[in-house]
């Protein structure tokens, strides 16, 4: 492609140079026209270079270049002081209009769409060349005010005939007008049937077609306006210039599409839905019809982001399917015209791939996190259940046996009244049994507080407070039952906090507040002790924070030295 570009660029420079050289020194009257021709011809060549660079797969660059040379070369030939060149130059001056019509019909792929269109284009070339040849036979350069310094018209028959030339030009102009009408109609039909990217790509052409149509009507032979010379030498070149300029501008704008794509992906919030991704990609590509489709989980077809089925194996006419690299499920379906921008499509597919991969990884991490959270909650709940079971086993088993033993020893002691020694022995055995029972009860209570299962939070907190060696008041506690995991967590928070108050706080009093808020349970234990407790320090608070987190809650410890400690657990509670 770069070699092609180099050849084109060199050709453009050579053509411009030749034109300047051939017309040098310029006749002062013709200088503005010379500059005008040069600028227009060059603009077509520049647009050709731009088209080749932007859409290497399209023949649009070739057509722009041909139109440019067909515009420039006749003027170079006319300016050469050579009769043959002068004649050929004059002969070929109008053929570029056929090339422009060809360009318009072949936009943007550079290919004509039907045999009819091929016929129209051939008719354009034949008309332009044929009427020029017919007219030149009767054209004496002197008719156009060309003095003796002009080279001769080698095809001139006799002295020529002004009326015959004018008649041929008038017929040629009329046929040209009809053909222009057909070409413009076809272009409008192309525009109407185009969707998405193709429609956008036709915007410069539509402007140009409108301008050419207007110019043709104004300068057409049927009309003889007083300003026709101004139109011919002022408006017509401007219209011709508009085409290449509009195309180059649209190319520059398209170049920023790559940047827009980057911005679209960067702007996409993390974990954005496929629908949002599709919108971003469509904006970046300039194709509002872009579809992002995913294979159904059962593999029976594809659905787009709106949930509509998409035919991927046999796409609709004018649609193209590209698989998103790295994703086994995702495809992009877009306007066929975008095939002219393979680089942009590749970038888009890559961006889609990255975004989908990002979403997938994020969803995966989120799912794993959820799994870990759920498994942590399950582990804690299983631990609680196990503790409840152990407490119950102790209660049903060892405690029951120790109670019976204790009662039996009591009876034995009563019956051994006659033997004081035996009585004292039984009494000490009975005392041991009672102490063992007391210790076992404490152990069971530590494993799991039966009062929590029996009465819920209010009774359990009351029991904790009653056993606390520091004077503790309960300012609030919900009376009803709560989910077991929340009750247990709230209980252990208060239990651990009161244990810490008794062990470390050197406090005179403590306060327990448990408030039920919408969707939450807030547990607070505060004391008026020494403060300075650090959550990361003691394993008790660390373990408590883990326990609170296991139900999705948060633990906060405020303990400025000398200002008491406030422990607050915020638990989710339906």
């Amino acid at each position, binding site marked *: 492609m770069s070699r092609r570009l180099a050849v084109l660029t060199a050709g453009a420079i050579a053509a411009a140079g030749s034109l300047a050289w051939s017309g040098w020194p310029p006749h002062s009257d013709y200088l503005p026209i010379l500059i005008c021709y040069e600028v227009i011809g060059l603009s077509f060549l520049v647009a050709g270079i731009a088209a080749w660079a932007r859409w290497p797969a399209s023949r649009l660059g070739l057509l722009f270049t041909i139109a440019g040379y067909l515009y420039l070369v006749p003027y170079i030939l006319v300016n050469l002081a050579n009769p043959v060149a002068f004649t050929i130059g004059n002969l070929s001056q109008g053929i570029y209009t056929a090339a422009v019509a060809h360009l318009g019909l072949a936009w943007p792929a550079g290919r004509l769409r039907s045999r009819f269109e091929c016929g129209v284009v051939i008719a354009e070339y034949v008309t332009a060349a044929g009427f020029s040849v017919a007219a030149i036979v009767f054209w004496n350069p002197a008719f156009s005010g060309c003095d003796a310094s002009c080279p001769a018209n080698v095809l001139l028959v006799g002295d020529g005939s002004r009326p015959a030339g004018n008649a041929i030009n008038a017929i040629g102009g009329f046929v040209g007008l009809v053909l222009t009408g057909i070409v413009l109609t076809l272009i409008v039909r192309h525009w109407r049937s185009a969707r998405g990217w193709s429609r956008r790509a036709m915007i410069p052409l539509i402007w140009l077609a409108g301008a050419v149509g207007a110019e043709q009507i104004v300068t057409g032979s049927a009309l003889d306006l007083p300003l026709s010379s101004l139109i011919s030498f002022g408006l017509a070149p401007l219209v011709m210039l508009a085409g290449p300029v509009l195309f180059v501008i649209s190319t520059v704008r398209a170049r920023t599409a790559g940047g827009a794509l980057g911005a679209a992906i960067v702007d996409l919030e993390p974990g954005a839905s496929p629908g949002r991704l599709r919108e971003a990609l469509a904006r970046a590509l300039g194709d509002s019809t872009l579809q992002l489709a995913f294979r159904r989980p059962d593999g029976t077809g594809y659905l787009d982001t709106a949930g509509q089925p998409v035919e991927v194996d046999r796409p609709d006419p004018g649609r193209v399917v590209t698989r998103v690299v790295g994703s086994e499920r995702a495809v992009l379906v877009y306007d066929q015209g975008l095939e002219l921008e393979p680089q942009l499509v590749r970038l888009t597919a890559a961006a889609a791939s990255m975004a989908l991969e990002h979403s997938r990884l994020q969803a995966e991490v989120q799912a794993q996190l959820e799994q870990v959270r759920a498994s942590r909650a399950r582990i804690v709940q299983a631990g609680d259940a196990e503790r409840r079971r152990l407490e119950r086993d102790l209660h049903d088993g060892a405690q029951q046996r120790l*109670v019976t033993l204790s009662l039996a020893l009591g009876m034995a002691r009563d019956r051994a009244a006659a033997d004081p020694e035996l009585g004292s022995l039984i009494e000490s055995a009975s005392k041991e049994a009672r102490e063992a029972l007391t210790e076992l009860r404490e152990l069971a209570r530590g494993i799991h507080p039966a*009062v929590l299962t029996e009465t819920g939070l209010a*009774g359990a907190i009351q029991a904790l407070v009653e056993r606390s060696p520091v004077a503790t008041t309960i300012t609030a506690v919900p009376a009803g039952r709560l989910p077991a995991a929340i009750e247990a967590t709230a209980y252990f928070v208060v239990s651990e906090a009161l244990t810490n108050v008794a062990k470390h706080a050197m406090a005179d009093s403590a306060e327990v507040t448990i408030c039920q808020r919408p969707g939450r349970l807030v547990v607070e234990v505060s004391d008026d002790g020494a403060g300075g407790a650090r959550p990361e320090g003691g394993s008790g608070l660390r373990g408590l924070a883990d326990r609170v987190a296991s139900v999705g809650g948060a633990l906060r410890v405020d303990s400025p030295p000398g200002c008491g400690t406030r422990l607050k657990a915020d638990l989710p509670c339906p």
Partner: protein
Amino acid sequence: MLRVCPDASGRARCQTGSVQPAPAILIVDDHVGFRTFVRSMLEAAGFTVAEAATGGEATEAVRTIRPGLVLLDIQLPDFDGFEVARRLAAGQGGDPAPVVVLTSTREASDYGGRIAGSPAAGFLPKDQLSGAALRRFLARDRA
């Protein structure tokens, strides 16, 4: 009609001038070993004793036996002692309702305010069970 003061150890108490016979006691507990033991202890203390293993059996037994006191374990396989006490107080075992004493291997504090909220006459930890303790409940009831 159930016999009272049936055995040797009870006779002493009868002889010390108790005009009224000691009332029948219904032990409600799902542990057979414990029931058997308590039965022998209370019979030795002069009571007539009947047994029930579940809450359902308990209300049925109260209706037929009409015991003066029900020693009711809180933990039962069908419904708990609090529920049995509520049913008896509601007259499901006949009128008048017997004195109900709740009992458990646990301590009263393990049940928070449930014991105070129950229509039962009181709570006796199992390890403190004795004929004398039950008599105190009966005496309080008569008073």
